Structure formats: structure tokens, C-alpha cells
């Protein structure tokens, strides 16, 4: 998995690409740090170029949400499709994280 961050006045848009799996633990740790430290309140993950997410990837997204909540930031997942949208649905992540089309 790779990511790039674009920061606007209202939100930080994190563009993810590739496959988010248990092997991305170091990158996710770095991403969580960057999201908690930047200056905007809303952190949005753009998943349109993400091909695959596994259960550990889901778990790491939940940790990101928790960490951002402790610094009073919102966490939004956007533009998931295909396998990624399917796993977010099966894991019922919409109950815990805001998911936008």
C-alpha cells in the first residue's frame, strides 16, 4: 500500500493505492502519526485506487479512528469500490466510521 496526503483548508485527503494488508503495519503507523499531527480537523481516506483490504487493515483503520478521536479530529472513508467496498460492508465498518460514496 502507498499513500499521498493533500491538505486543503477544510480537510486532509489521504489517497491510498494498492493493497492494505497486515504487512502494512509500519506504513499505517506512520500515516496515523501524520494524520494526528497535521493542522486540519477532518482526515479523509480516498480509497478509489485501493484494490484490496484485509481484516488487519480494517483493524488498523479502527485504531486510526480512535487515535484521531482523542485529538478531536473526524475520520472519513470515501470512494471505496469493488473488493474494498465489499469488505467494509461485510465487516460492518459503517457502524463505526463515516463512509461516503
Amino acid at each position, binding site marked *: 500500500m502507498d499513500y499521498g496526503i493533500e491538505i486543503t483548508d477544510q480537510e486532509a485527503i489521504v489517497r491510498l493505492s494498492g493493497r492494505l494488508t497486515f504487512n502494512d503495519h509500519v506504513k499505517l503507523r506512520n500515516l496515523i502519526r501524520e494524520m494526528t499531527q497535521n493542522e486540519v480537523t477532518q482526515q479523509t481516506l480516498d480509497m478509489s485506487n485501493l484494490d*484490496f483490504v484485509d481484516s488487519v487493515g480494517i*483493524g488498523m483503520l479502527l485504531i486510526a479512528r480512535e487515535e484521531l478521536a482523542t485529538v478531536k479530529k473526524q475520520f472519513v472513508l470515501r470512494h471505496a469500490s469493488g*473488493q474494498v467496498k465489499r469488505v467494509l460492508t461485510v465487516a460492518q465498518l459503517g457502524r463505526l466510521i463515516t463512509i461516503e460514496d
Partner: protein
Amino acid sequence: MPEERLSSVATYCCMPVRRSQDGFRTAHRASSSVIALLGLDWEDEIDSSWHAPFTAWIELASCSDAAVAELVERAARHSLFASLSAASANRIALARGLVLTISDHRPIALAQRNDLELALHEAIANAILHGNLEIDGIRTLNLADLDRFSQDIIHRTDEPALAARRVEVACSLEDDRLQIDVTDQGRGFSSGQPGAVGAGGRGLQLIATLTRSCQLLDGGRCIRMEFAL
């Protein structure tokens, strides 16, 4: 792989040896079924083997010729078969490759292929992480638990005895069903252990949702999944 080792293994298994056009060295029993024997520096080449007529992928590391012959015999009893060390299985997208090959043998709709890949990936990840490397999942929503998980992966894959443990995937493809067994060499798993708690524990729940049936065998060292086709 050194030519001498390939010849030695192929002779032990009574199989001829050939070199494919892309340089991938293989031993095979018949033109309809090719076994890839993975020696050294194979990870960059393996993507070219995820299609028919390849039906098995066996890593030779730390295996005697007799052990390889036994794996070849097991491979012959299944439609598709893979046996890799935990360290190698951790570095490649094994589930993706196997599903590509399955769909080469049997056309599968994209949505079903996605579900198949996710279930197989989860079973393989369980075998690598919780089985062979004996790593606890991320049980809380704390960053400290993610750090512990991360350090465990880094350190356990550096332990030769754990990293050398095998992950075995055996697929039986029939007319209307696909059965996949994923086996590890860890200490086993009790189905009574907690499910989704905090950030972890969703793997088995996802598998149960995505398969027609699934069961834990051999004290949790093997998960058997069945899919309707």
C-alpha cells in the same frame, strides 16, 4: 535453483525437468500439470507462474529430497497445491496468485473471485501470523498494541525456526464446489478464543461469512473452507 539440486529432486520424484521460456525452471509429470520447484531468488519470477498448466508451487528451502518427494505426492492428490515457508508466504501475494490460477481453470465472476481471494488471504494470514509465527492479533484499539503487533512481525520473521515453518494450501476443484485446506505448523488454535474484539479477531468471522462452510481441523492447525461454484 542450482541445476544439480533440481536434477536431484526431479530424479528422486521420477519427474523430467524443463526450463520455460521465461526462465522459470520446473519439473513436471505430464503436459497438463506442472509443478514449480522454488529454489533461490524465485520471488521475482513467481508471478509468471500463476496460470495453467502450473498446478503446484513447492519451496525447497530446508526440505530434503525425500520431503520434497512427499510434497509432490501430496500435490498430485489435489487440483492445486502450494507449500511455502512462513517467511516466503509472508512476502508474496499467495492468495491472489492461487485465485488467478483457479480462475484460469474455472471461469469465476469477479465478485465471487474477490470473496474467494479475501477468504483465502485471511486463512493464509492466520496460518502465517497466529499459527507459524505465534503472534497474537491486535486485540485493542490502542496504538501501543499496533506497535507490539508490528514489532512481533519484524522479530518473529527473523527467527529461523519460526520463519521456516510451512504454510500448505491444498485446493480440490470439483464441478460445483471448491474445497481449500490451509495448514500451518503452529501450536493450534481453539475456536473458543475470542472473536472480533477491538481492532482484531475479524479474520475467522470474515471467512465464515464468505464461505459455504468452514471448519477448524487438527487442533486448529488446518482450516477447511468450502465454496459453491
